[in-house]
C-alpha cells in the first residue's frame, strides 16, 4: 500500500509488470520487491528445503527469500533478488521452487515431514543402498530442493570484462563512502566510488536522518553533484565490489542493463570489472539481523530497517497494522517513522526491560515475540511478557536483532574479524586487506555523524599514503546518538525458529549439530548448511554462531566465524567468462594460404591456435582417405605443396649464437657450415626430449631455428631462459620470425621443376644439395630456400615475406597441378612422415628420451647441453626400455590403432604383460597396408618378431610384425636426390 507524498520514486512515471502472470503496476524507482509490497503481494517464494511460504525479508542484496526468475528462454535469469531488481515497464517475474503454483505447492508436504529433514538428514537418511544415491536419492533431492532453473538455451545476452585502475577505490556510497570520496576527490586523487545500488546514498535513502539540516538523500544528491563535476572521480553505480584479492585487486560486477526493458540494446547485460586500487576504503555499511523465534519466517515478517526503507524510500507501508520487535534503540525508529507517516503501529516490543519509552504506541518492554500465526502470511503474533502471553493482530512485524557490520571483504584474504561486545558484532581488523581501511557502519560506527567522521578520516589517511595533501574536511552536522542494544539471538521455546532463511536452518538444527559434536563453527556450517550457497551467512551468520556458542558453553569470540568468501553477492558464470565464448575463447591463427585453403573446401584441423588443412577434396571423392591417398601420391610421384608457415622460426644472432645452439641441442651446431641445415634434438633438463627441428646457418653469427608448430612458444621461452637466466654473459639475440615468413614445402620428384619456374636463378643441384639453404629471389622478391624434407622425397621449403604468401601459394599450386601434383594437407603430411619413420609430438610426448627414439647417438659426447647429464641416468638408458619401432599388420587387412597396447603374441592382454604402445598409425597408399610407429620394450632388437596389438577400448586385436620404423626408402636415396 502506497503512502501519498512519501518516497523517492517517480510518481509521474507509472510502469506495468507481471508476477506469476498477474499484471501489476509500480513506479520508476521501485524495485520489484517494493512494487510487490505496494500491490499487497506478500507470498513471493517457497523455501529451499521445506517449501514454506516466504515473503520479502529485507530491502537489499542480502535478501534470502524473495528470489524470482526474470525473463524466458536464452534470457532467463533465475534467483534474481526481488529487492535488487529495478522495475521497468514490461518486466515479467516468476516465482521459483514450487509446483504447480506458489499458492498451492504440493512439495510443501516436505514441511510436514520436517522432523526427518533436520541437520545432517542427507548423511543419515540416504546412506544405503549405495547404488540408490546416484539413481534415486540425488535426482529426487535435486528436484525437491532448490532454487530457480536455467532455461537450457544459449545465453542470448552480451557480457563483458574490463579493467580499471585508480588511486583510491571507495566501496559503498552511503554517508561514509560519500564523505571519503568527497575528501579524496577534492584532494585530486584518482577515485572510483562504487555502489551496488542504482542510486547513490546508501542508508540515507531509507532513513529520515538529516545532514546539515537537510534530508540525508538531499545531502547525498548535493555530494553526488560535486563528485560528478570532478573529472578525477569515477562513479560506478549498480556495481557490487564482490571480492578483494592480492595487491589492491578487486573484483566488481556492474549490472549494466538488468533495469532496462530492452536489455541494453547492444550494451552488455553485465560487466565484470577488475579494479586495481593503490588504496581502498570499505564503506559497505551494515546488515540487520533477524531474531529467531517460532515461525519467524512467515511472509509479513521483515527486518525493521527494511520496513523503514520501504516506507521512506519507496513510500510503501508493508502492512496495515505493523508491530515492531527489537532489542535495540534503532528498531524504535521504525515505529516512529511509521507513526509519522500515519501507519498504525499495533505494538512495539523491546526485549530490554530498561528500553527507552516511545510515546504514542502500545509498548511492551521486556517482552519477546515467541510465535506467529497466519495462513500464507502473517495475521498475528504472540508476545511473551512478564505475567503471561499476549496475542496481537498484525499483518507486518518489523524485527531487529541489531546490525552486523558488512565485514565480508576484509575476510577475503584470510582476515578474521574481531568481536565487539558493546555492539555485539564482529568488526574488521585493521590491515586485514593491505591498503584497505574500513569506515562507517561496516566498521561498527552506527551513527550518521560517526560514518561521516570515519569516512573522512579513512580518506585523509589513504591520501597520506598516496603522498597527496588533504585538507581537513569540515564535517557536516548529523545525528550522533549512540547505539544501544542487549543481545537477543533466539527466543526460547518450542517449534522451529529460523536462523538461515535461504537454507532452511533452524535453531534446533544448530543445537543438534552441537549435540552430535559438530562443535566447530566450520563443522556446524557444513553439517547444517547454515550460511552456505549464495547467502554466505549475511543474515544468519552471527546469530547461528551465537546459538552454537550457547550450545557449546563457549563465548562468541571463542566460537569464531566461518570464512566469508568471494563473491559478496552472486556473479553469473557468464560474466566471469565474458567475451571468452565462441570466437573469443582463444585466438585463431590463420596462415596466408587460409583463404585459398577454405576456397578449395579443405576441412580445417586445429594445431595449437593455428588452423591447417586436413586434405583438399576433389569432386567425386567421398572419403577423406581417397583425398589423402591422392595427395600422398602427388608427393611420391609428382609434386605436392603444403603450407608449413606454422612451424616456429626463431632468428638467432650474435657472437655467441653457436654457443647457444650447442647448449640447447644435443648435437653440434657450431660446426655446421654456413649455408647448411642440420636436424637438432632438444632436451628438457630432466633428460627427456622436448622438441626437434631443423636449424639453418645463414651466416657466421646467424642461425634460423625451426620448431614444431605446437612447441614454438615453449621453445622460445626455453631459449630466453637459457640466455637470460643461465648465460646472460653471452652475446646473442632472439627474435621470432614465424610470422614474417610464409613458408611452403614443395616436395616430390618434380619439386625442382616447380621452383625453377619462379626462382630468378634456376636451381643447380650441385649448389643445392640435401640440407642446404640460402637466399633466393622469388619472382623478384627476396626469399629463402631450404632443401629439407619431411616426406622422404626431394623437398624444398621456400619462404617469402608473409605479404606475398597468398600469392606464392596460388602460383606454387598452379604449377604443381600443371605437373600432375597439387596441394596436400595434414593427413597426407602425416602419412608421408610415418612412412619415413619421422617423429612428431605423438612420439616425443614428454616421456621419451633420445635413446628411446633411437637417437641416443645424437647426444654429443664432446660438449655439455641442457638435459645431457640427466639423460645419462642409468634408468633412462637401461635395457628393457620401450623404444621406437615400426609395426606392420600380419595380414593385409589388419588394423592398427594409435593408443593400443602391445603384448607378446601368446601373452594375455593385461597390465602386467604390457610391452609397449602404438603412437602413430596410417594407411600407407605407397605400401598398400596399414603401418604404425610404436614404443616396444627392447624394440630395436625385436625386428621380425610377431607381437599382439590390443585396443581394449575399441575391441581390436591385431597381430603385427615388428619392423624398422623407416618403412620406405630406408637409405634415403630419394630425398638426397
Amino acid at each position, binding site marked *: 500500500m502506497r503512502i501519498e507524498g512519501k518516497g523517492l520514486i517517480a510518481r509521474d512515471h507509472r510502469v506495468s509488470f507481471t508476477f506469476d502472470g498477474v499484471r501489476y503496476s509500480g513506479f520508476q524507482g521501485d524495485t520489484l520487491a517494493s512494487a510487490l509490497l505496494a500491490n499487497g503481494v506478500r507470498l513471493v517464494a517457497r523455501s529451499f528445503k521445506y517449501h514454506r511460504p516466504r515473503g520479502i525479508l529485507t530491502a537489499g542484496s542480502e535478501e534470502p527469500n524473495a528470489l524470482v526468475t526474470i525473463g524466458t528462454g536464452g534470457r532467463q535469469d533465475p534467483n534474481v533478488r526481488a529487492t535488487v531488481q529495478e522495475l521497468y515497464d514490461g518486466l515479467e517475474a516468476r516465482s521459483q521452487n514450487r509446483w504447480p503454483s506458489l499458492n498451492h505447492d504440493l512439495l510443501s508436504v516436505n514441511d510436514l515431514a520436517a522432523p526427518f529433514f533436520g541437520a545432517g538428514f542427507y548423511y543419515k537418511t540416504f546412506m544405503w543402498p549405495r547404488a540408490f544415491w546416484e539413481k534415486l536419492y540425488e535426482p529426487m533431492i535435486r528436484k525437491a530442493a532448490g532454487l530457480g532453473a536455467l532455461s537450457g538455451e544459449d545465453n542470448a545476452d552480451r557480457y563483458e570484462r574490463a*579493467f580499471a585502475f585508480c588511486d583510491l577505490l571507495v566501496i559503498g556510497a552511503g554517508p561514509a563512502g560519500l564523505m571519503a570520496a568527497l575528501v579524496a576527490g577534492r584532494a585530486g586523487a584518482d577515485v572510483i566510488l562504487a555502489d551496488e545500488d542504482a542510486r547513490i546514498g546508501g542508508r540515507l535513502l531509507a532513513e529520515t536522518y538529516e545532514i546539515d539540516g537537510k534530508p540525508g538523500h538531499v545531502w547525498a544528491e548535493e555530494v553526488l553533484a560535486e563528485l560528478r563535476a570532478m573529472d578525477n572521480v569515477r562513479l560506478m553505480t549498480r556495481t557490487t565490489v564482490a571480492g578483494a*584479492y*592480492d*595487491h*589492491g*585487486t578487486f573484483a566488481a560486477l556492474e549490472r549494466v542493463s538488468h533495469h532496462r526493458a530492452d536489455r541494453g540494446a547492444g550494451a552488455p547485460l553485465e560487466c565484470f570489472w*577488475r579494479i*586495481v586500487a593503490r588504496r581502498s576504503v570499505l564503506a559497505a555499511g551494515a546488515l540487520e539481523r533477524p531474531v529467531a523465534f517460532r515461525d519467524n519466517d512467515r511472509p509479513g515478517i521483515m527486518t525493521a530497517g527494511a520496513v523503514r526503507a520501504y516506507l521512506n524510500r519507496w513510500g510503501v507501508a508493508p502492512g496495515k497494522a505493523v508491530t515492531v520487535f527489537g532489542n535495540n534503540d534503532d528498531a524504535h525508529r521504525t515505529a516512529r517513522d511509521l507513526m509519522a507517516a500515519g501507519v498504525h503501529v499495533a505494538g512495539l516490543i523491546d526485549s530490554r526491560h530498561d528500553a527507552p519509552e516511545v510515546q504514542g504506541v502500545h509498548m511492551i518492554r521486556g517482552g519477546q515475540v515467541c510465535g506467529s500465526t497466519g495462513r500464507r502470511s502473517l495475521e498475528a503474533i504472540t508476545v511473551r511478557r512478564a505475567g503471561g502471553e499476549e496475542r496481537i493482530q498484525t499483518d507486518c512485524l518489523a524485527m531487529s536483532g541489531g546490525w552486523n557490520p558488512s565485514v565480508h571483504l576484509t575476510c577475503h*584474504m584470510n582476515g578474521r574479524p574481531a568481536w565487539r561486545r558493546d555492539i555485539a558484532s564482529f568488526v574488521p581488523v585493521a590491515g586485514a586487506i*593491505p591498503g584497505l581501511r574500513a569506515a562507517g557502519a561496516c566498521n561498527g560506527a552506527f551513527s550518521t555523524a560517526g560514518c561521516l567522521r570515519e569516512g573522512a578520516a579513512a580518506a585523509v589517511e589513504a591520501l597520506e599514503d598516496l603522498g597527496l595533501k588533504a585538507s581537513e574536511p569540515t564535517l557536516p552536522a548529523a545525528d550522533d546518538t549512540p547505539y544501544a542494544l542487549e543481545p537477543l539471538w533466539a527466543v526460547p521455546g518450542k517449534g522451529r525458529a529460523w536462523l538461515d532463511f535461504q537454507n532452511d536452518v533452524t535453531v534446533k538444527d544448530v543445537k543438534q549439530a552441537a549435540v552430535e559434536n559438530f562443535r566447530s563453527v566450520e563443522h556446524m556450517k557444513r553439517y547444517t548448511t547454515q550460511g552456505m550457497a549464495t547467502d554466505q551467512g549475511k543474515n544468519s551468520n552471527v546469530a547461528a554462531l551465537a546459538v552454537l556458542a550457547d550450545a557449546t558453553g563457549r563465548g562468541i569470540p571463542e566460537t569464531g566465524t566461518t570464512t566469508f568468501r568471494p563473491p559478496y553477492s552472486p556473479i553469473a558464470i557468464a560474466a566471469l567468462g565474458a567475451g571468452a565464448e565462441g570466437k573469443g575463447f582463444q585466438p585463431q591463427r590463420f596462415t596466408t594460404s587460409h583463404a585459398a585453403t577454405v576456397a578449395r573446401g579443405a576441412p580445417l584441423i586445429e594445431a595449437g591456435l593455428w588452423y591447417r588443412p586436413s586434405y583438399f577434396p576433389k569432386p567425386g571423392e567421398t572419403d577423406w582417405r581417397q583425398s589423402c591417398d591422392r595427395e600422398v601420391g602427388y608427393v611420391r610421384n609428382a609434386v605436392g605443396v603444403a603450407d608449413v608457415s606454422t612451424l616456429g622460426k626463431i632468428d638467432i644472432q650474435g657472437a655467441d649464437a653457436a654457443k647457444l645452439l650447442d647448449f640447447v641441442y644435443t648435437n653440434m651446431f657450431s660446426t655446421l657450415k654456413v649455408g647448411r641445415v642440420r636436424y637438432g634434438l632438444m632436451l628438457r*633438463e*630432466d633428460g627427456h626430449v622436448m622438441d626437434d627441428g631443423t636449424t639453418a646457418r645463414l651466416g657466421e653469427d646467424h642461425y634460423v631455428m625451426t620448431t614444431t608448430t605446437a612447441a614454438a*612458444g615453449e621453445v622460445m*621461452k626455453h631459449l*630466453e*631462459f637459457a640466455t*637470460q*637466466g*643461465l648465460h*646472460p*654473459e653471452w652475446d646473442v639475440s632472439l627474435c621470432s620470425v614465424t610470422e614474417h615468413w610464409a613458408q611452403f614445402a614443395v616436395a616430390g620428384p618434380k619439386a625442382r621443376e616447380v621452383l625453377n619456374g619462379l626462382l630468378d636463378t634456376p636451381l643447380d643441384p650441385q649448389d643445392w644439395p640435401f640440407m642446404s639453404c640460402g637466399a633466393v629471389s622469388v619472382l623478384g622478391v627476396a626469399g629463402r630456400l631450404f632443401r629439407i624434407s619431411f616426406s622422404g622425397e626431394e623437398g624444398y621449403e621456400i619462404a617469402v615475406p608473409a605479404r606475398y604468401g597468398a600469392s606464392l601459394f596460388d602460383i606454387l599450386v598452379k604449377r604443381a597441378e600443371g605437373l600432375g601434383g597439387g596441394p596436400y594437407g595434414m593427413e597426407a603430411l602425416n602419412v608421408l612422415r610415418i612412412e619415413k619413420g619421422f617423429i612428431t609430438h605423438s612420439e616425443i610426448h614428454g616421456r621419451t628420451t633420445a635413446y628411446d627414439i633411437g637417437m641416443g647417438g645424437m647426444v654429443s659426447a664432446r660438449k*655439455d647441453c641442457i638435459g*645431457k*647429464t*640427466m639423460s645419462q*641416468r642409468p634408468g633412462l638408458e637401461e635395457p628393457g626400455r620401450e623404444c621406437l619401432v615400426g609395426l606392420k599388420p600380419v595380414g593385409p587387412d589388419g588394423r592398427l590403432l594409435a593408443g593400443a597396447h602391445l603384448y607378446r603374441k601368446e601373452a594375455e592382454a593385461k597390465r602386467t604383460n604390457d610391452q609397449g604402445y602404438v603412437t602413430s598409425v596410417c594407411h600407407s597408399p605407397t605400401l598398400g597396408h596399414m603401418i604404425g610407429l610404436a614404443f616396444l620394450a627392447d624394440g630395436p632388437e625385436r625386428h621380425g618378431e610377431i607381437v599382439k596389438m590390443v585396443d581394449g577400448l575399441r575391441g581390436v586385436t591385431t597381430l603385427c610384425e615388428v619392423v624398422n620404423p623407416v618403412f620406405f626408402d630406408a637409405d634415403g636415396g630419394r630425398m638426397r636426390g
Partner: protein
Amino acid sequence: MRITCPHCGERDHREFYYKGHALALERPSPDAGEAAWDDYVHQRENPAGVTRDLWYHEGGCGAWVVVSRNTLTHEVLGTQAASEARA
C-alpha cells in the same frame, strides 16, 4: 596478484608464466654429481614464508624475472631481472 616487471612496471599476473624456484638459475656443472643434479632438477623447498621464484613475462616484454615474495602474506618483496640476478 601484481608483479613489478623490472622493465614494464607493475602488471597483472595474467601476463606472466610461472616456472618455479629461482634455484633453476644455479645450474650445476656437468660433473657436479648425481646428488647436485637431483637437487637442481627435482628437489624444491615449499617454504611458508619468503621464497624466490621465476616468472616469465610472456604476455609482456619477454623478461625472466626473479620475484621475492612471502607465500603466507602474498606480499611481493622485490623483483629483479633474471639476467641481473645471475650477473
